[in-house]
C-alpha cells in the first residue's frame, strides 16, 4: 500500500500548490461570461447567482481592438521572421564554418545569452531616437512606420535583437546535430554554402525552426515592456498595452470586459501551447544544453 498511497499524496500535494494557477485561469474563463463574479461564482447585479452574459465581448465590435490586434500580429510575425532569418544564418556559420574570430563570436553570443538585456532598455531608447532621425528608414515607412522611436518597426527590431542570443545558440545546437555526409558531398560537387543551407540543411532541422518560430511568435504576441516603453504616443499600441491601459484606468473598471480582453490575448498562446508543448519544452531546456 505504501508506494501507491505515497503517489496519491504527491498528486494531492501538487494540486494544492498549483491551486493559484488553476483558480486564476478558472476565474478568467468564468468572469468572461458573467456580469460580475463573487470569487468564482457568477452573480447578477443584485448579488444572486446567475448573470451569465455575452456583453463582455462587446469590445470585439470596437475598432480599436482590431487595430491593436493587427499591430500585435505584425509585431509577432516580424519578430518571428527576423529571429529565424538572422539566427539561422548566424547559427549555420557558427556551427559549420571556420573563420577567424569564430570562437570569440561564439563566446560573445553565449555571454549575451546570460546577459540581461533588460538593463539596456534605457540606452536603447537613445539608439531608437537616433534611428528616428534617419530619413525614410527612421519613421517614414508604410505599415510598420519605420525603425525609429515610437514606431512598430522599431519595437520589432529591438525585440529581434533581444531574442537573438537564444535564437543563435539554439540554431547552432540544431545544426551541430545534422550529419556532415550530404553537406560534404554537395561541397565537393561545388555547391555554394547558401544553397547547401537552403536546400540540404534547413529541411533537416524543421523541428528546430518550428520550435523557435512558435516561441518567438508567443514572445511577440505577449510582449509588454518593449511596446510600453518605446511606443509611448499611443497607449493602445499592442494588445498587451491596450489591456494594461484598461487595467490601470482610474475609473471603476468592468472586470468582465478586462477578463474578456485578457482571454482574447491568452487564447492564441494557449492553443499554440497545447499543440506544441513538446517543441516548446525543447526551447526551455535547449537554451542551457550541456551545462548540467
Amino acid at each position, binding site marked *: 500500500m505504501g508506494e501507491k498511497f505515497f503517489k496519491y499524496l504527491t498528486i494531492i500535494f*501538487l494540486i494544492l500548490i498549483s491551486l493559484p*494557477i488553476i483558480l486564476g485561469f478558472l476565474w478568467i474563463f468564468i468572469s468572461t461570461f458573467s456580469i460580475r463574479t463573487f470569487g468564482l461564482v457568477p452573480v447578477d447585479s443584485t448579488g444572486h447567482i446567475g448573470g451569465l452574459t455575452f456583453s463582455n465581448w462587446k469590445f470585439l465590435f470596437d475598432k480599436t481592438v482590431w487595430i491593436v490586434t493587427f499591430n500585435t500580429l505584425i509585431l509577432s510575425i516580424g519578430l518571428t521572421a527576423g529571429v529565424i532569418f538572422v539566427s539561422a*544564418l548566424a547559427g549555420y556559420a557558427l556551427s559549420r564554418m571556420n573563420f*577567424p574570430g569564430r570562437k570569440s563570436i561564439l563566446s560573445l553570443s553565449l555571454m549575451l545569452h546570460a*546577459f540581461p538585456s533588460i538593463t539596456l*532598455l*534605457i540606452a536603447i531608447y537613445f539608439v531608437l531616437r537616433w534611428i528616428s532621425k534617419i530619413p525614410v528608414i527612421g519613421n517614414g515607412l508604410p505599415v510598420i512606420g519605420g525603425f525609429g522611436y515610437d514606431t512598430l518597426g522599431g519595437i520589432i527590431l529591438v525585440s529581434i535583437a533581444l531574442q*537573438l542570443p537564444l535564437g543563435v545558440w539554439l540554431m547552432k545546437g540544431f545544426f551541430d546535430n545534422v550529419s556532415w555526409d550530404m553537406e560534404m558531398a554537395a561541397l565537393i560537387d561545388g555547391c555554394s554554402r*547558401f544553397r547547401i543551407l537552403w536546400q540540404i540543411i534547413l529541411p533537416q532541422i524543421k523541428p528546430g525552426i518550428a520550435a523557435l518560430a512558435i516561441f518567438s511568435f508567443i514572445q511577440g504576441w505577449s510582449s509588454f515592456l518593449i511596446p510600453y516603453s518605446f511606443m509611448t504616443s499611443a497607449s493602445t499600441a499592442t494588445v498587451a498595452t491596450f489591456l494594461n491601459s484598461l487595467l490601470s484606468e482610474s475609473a471603476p473598471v468592468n472586470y468582465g470586459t478586462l477578463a474578456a480582453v485578457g482571454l482574447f490575448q491568452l487564447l492564441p498562446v494557449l492553443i499554440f*501551447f497545447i499543440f506544441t508543448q513538446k517543441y516548446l519544452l525543447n526551447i526551455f531546456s535547449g537554451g542551457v544544453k550541456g551545462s548540467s
Partner: protein
Amino acid sequence: MGKLMDRLKALLKLHFIVPFLFLVVVFYFIPVIITFLISFTNMSSFTGFSNWHWVGLKNYVFILKNPETAQHFWITVKYVICTLIFFNVGLAFVLAIATTHISQRWGYFFRSLWLLPRITPVVVYIMMWQFLVADAPYGVINQLVIKPLGLQPQNWLAVFPFLMIVLINGFVGASFGMIIFTSAIESIPKEIMNAALIDGATIFQRIRYIIVPYLKWPLLFVLTYQTLSLLTSFEQILILTNGEFGTEVWALWAYHKALSNYWGNFQWGFGMALSAILVIVGVIFSIVYMKFFKFNELVKKPKVETL
C-alpha cells in the same frame, strides 16, 4: 590597427554572420557604451539633449549618498533571495521530484500546468493575480479560503505587497528550474535508483544520497542564472504595483528615473548610473558562467575548414 581591420574585413566577407553582428552592435554594444557615457553627465529632460555637461562621478556619488538607495538596495536583496530560495530553486526542486515520482501522464500534466504562467502574456497573468487576491466579495482567495475560515477579508495586495511580488515572480520562475532538474533527475542511471530501492532506501534517503549529489551542477546553475534574471527583471512589478507599497526594486528604480515617472522629469544621467551598476553586475555574472560551466567544451571545431 591594420590587423584589426583585416579581421573585420574577413568577418564582413562572411555575409552569413553580418545581420547578427549588426544587430548586436546596434542593440548591445552601443547601448552599453551609451549607458556608461551618459552616466557621467547631468543629462535630464531639464537640460535637454544640447545643454548638458560632464559631471564625472557625481551621479555615482549621489547614489551613495542618497537616502533612498539603502531602501531600494535592501528591497532588491530581500526580493531576490526570497524568490530564489522559496521558488526558483526550492519549489522548482520539489516540483521536479514530485512530478518524477508519480505516473508519467500526471507528471507531464503538472509540468505543463506550471509552464502556463511563463507563457501567459504578462499583463493577463498579473490581472489574474490581482483578482485572486482582490478584496471581498470579488477576490477568489477571500471568497474561497478567508471567509469560510471566519477571518477578515482584505485586499491582500495592499496588505502583503512584498509577499505578492515574490509570489508572482516565483510562480513564473519555478518552471525554469523544474525543467532543468527534471531532465537531470531522469538522466540518473536506472541501476543506481534500483539498487537503492532494493536496499530499501526511503524516498528521503534517495533524495539526500542520490538525487541531490547528482543535481549539484544544475542546482548551482539555476541558482546563479536566476539570481541575475531576478536582479534585473521588473516587468511584473511594474504592472502589479508600479513600485508602490515599498516594492521599488533597483531595476525598476532606474527605469522610473530615466523613462517613466509621473512628473515627466527624466533624469537620464542618474538613471543610467543606476543601470550601469546592473550592467557591470550582468557582465561579471556572464563571464563567471562561461568560465564556471565549462564553455570551451561546447565549442567544437567545424569539420570543413574552407570558407
